[in-house]
């Protein structure tokens, strides 16, 4: 029951840093590293801590629609086949070709994904759900043993277009604050806007308020022009690790259900006051399908 750090994009320096020690595993791909680099990195990681290392060969690049989960029966069939092999760990990769920072909004697909995770777990096959974003909370509600995410949360989903993002020639990558109270990534201007609009209490809810969050807010006051990209990765990852751990309990479905209800209410309050965030699609519209998926999952009665 622990978070895994999805490596990539030169994120080796994040392994074992104070505030992120809670990650107990690392996911890295031999495809993206030479044999020599892989050996060197693994040796270095071993010196930093007793990490469970998962090598992701990235053999997934479906050319057809077989991997979709439109019906619960698809998830149950896949889980039936996988569980017959009694694997020590099921590494689940969700291929969702979404734009950066956008969430999966298809409730039936999310419900089926939760069923897949849950039935595997209940049949004795622990799961590691890779490339998670804040939808990790749904996977934990479904009983996932482990969830993984990486520093590039805006590239968090495994998607074929994610590699486009790396080019990023328009002035470098933007920093984002991850906010549990809205289950969304906020720009610096969004934080300022929320405060100006009287929604200061929407900032730093739960594990969003971690040691890196404090450093970011302090920096906003003392050094407002200083870059905070590195801190933004850490603030998100710390939230991820702490929350993943906190949701490794039997009550996770109820906890997440209550969170989502509160989050939706906060978005409704912002809407009613015409407080609009910088990015037009950063509007909380994914929360309703997430609640629907969780509701369907709870009613399924596993």
């Amino acid at each position, binding site marked *: 029951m622990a978070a895994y750090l999805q490596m990539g994009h030169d994120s080796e320096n994040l392994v074992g840093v104070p505030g992120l020690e809670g990650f107990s595993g690392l996911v890295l791909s031999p495809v993206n590293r030479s044999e020599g680099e892989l050996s060197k990195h693994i040796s270095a990681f071993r010196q930093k801590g007793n990490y469970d290392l998962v090598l992701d060969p990235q053999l997934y690049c479906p050319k057809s629609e077989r991997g979709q989960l439109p019906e619960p*029966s698809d998830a*149950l*069939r896949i*889980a*039936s*086949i996988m*569980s*017959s092999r009694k694997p020590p760990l099921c590494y689940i990769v969700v291929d969702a070709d979404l734009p950066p920072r956008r969430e999966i909004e298809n409730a039936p697909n999310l419900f089926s994904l939760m069923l897949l995770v849950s*039935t*595997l777990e*209940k*049949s*004795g096959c622990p799961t590691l759900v890779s490339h998670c974003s804040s939808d990790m909370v749904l996977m934990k509600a479904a009983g996932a043993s482990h969830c993984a995410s990486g520093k590039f949360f805006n590239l968090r989903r495994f998607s074929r277009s994610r590699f486009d993002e790396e080019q990023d020639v328009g002035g470098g990558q933007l920093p984002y604050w991850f906010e549990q109270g809205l289950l969304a990534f906020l720009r610096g201007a969004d934080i300022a806007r929320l405060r100006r609009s009287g929604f200061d209490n929407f900032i730093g809810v739960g594990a969003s308020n971690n040691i890196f969050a404090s450093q970011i807010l302090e920096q906003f006051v003392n050094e407002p022009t200083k870059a905070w990209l590195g801190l933004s990765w850490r603030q998100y990852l710390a939230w991820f690790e702490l929350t993943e751990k906190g949701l490794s309990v039997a009550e996770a479905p109820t906890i997440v259900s209550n969170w989502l209800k509160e989050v939706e209410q906060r978005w409704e309050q912002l809407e009613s006051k015409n407080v609009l965030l910088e990015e037009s699609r950063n509007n909380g519209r994914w929360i309703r399908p997430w609640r629907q998926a969780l509701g369907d999952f709870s009613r399924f009665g*596993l």
Partner: protein
Amino acid sequence: MNDKPELIDVAELVARKLDFKNPTFCGKGSFKETYRAEDSTGRATALKLVDRTKISIERTDREIEALKRCNSPRVAKILATTIFTAPDKRVFDVVVEEFFDGGSLEDRLKVRSLTQAEVIELVEGLILAVKDLQPNLVHRDIKPANIMFRKNQPEPVLVDFGIVRDLSQTSLTASWLASGPGTPFFASPEQLTNDKALTDWRSDQFSIGVVASLLLTGRHPYQVDPANPNAAIYAVIERRGPEPDFKAAMTQAGLPAIIKMVQPWPVLRFRDPDSVLAAIKR
């Protein structure tokens, strides 16, 4: 299996070839006749003759060898397999198994029904038998006629591992539609739809659950209409799940484990035989 014998001449020739004595007709199925015969040591055996023109070998040589090596007292020992060509050029697969003189569960049910305690004991015995087949073998045809007993002993023994199967049978469904209710009544959804990727020991678990349901409630767990048991098979194919009445009856009887055994997807059933045994005893 109580029709008239048609292969007694063949049985006598086979017995002579194998140095067996006194072949006596026991019963017949669609493509198979069974005879009791004594081997050279006087041990009673079941001599099964299968007409090769009407069937295909369903089991691989590896599986047959595994069955021969299986030393479980709960699984019928396969003593020998061979091929015999009759004078009229018909070719028969010959399977020699241990002979059970205590009859089948089907026979016993003609005399009396079982108590709940006896059903639980039977289910435990069958699950242990399935466990003894692990990890390589799946019975695939568990039903009352294939559950035998030794004389005066309550422990069940699994027989007839479907070593052979009807050639025209692309799936159990097709066979059932063509020939009327039979084995498919006890078959899992994955067997009825011939979904080989899903067929494993959990398919046997489903069949044992159906047998238990039949013994405890008198009906299939997916059966809605008491007068139409065949409709249950369509419900299994469609994976509708066990009926509320059945679930209520099992819950009331303190046997929710039977409900789990007959879930429509393997992943929703018990993960291993020990889990079933633990749940049944609870």
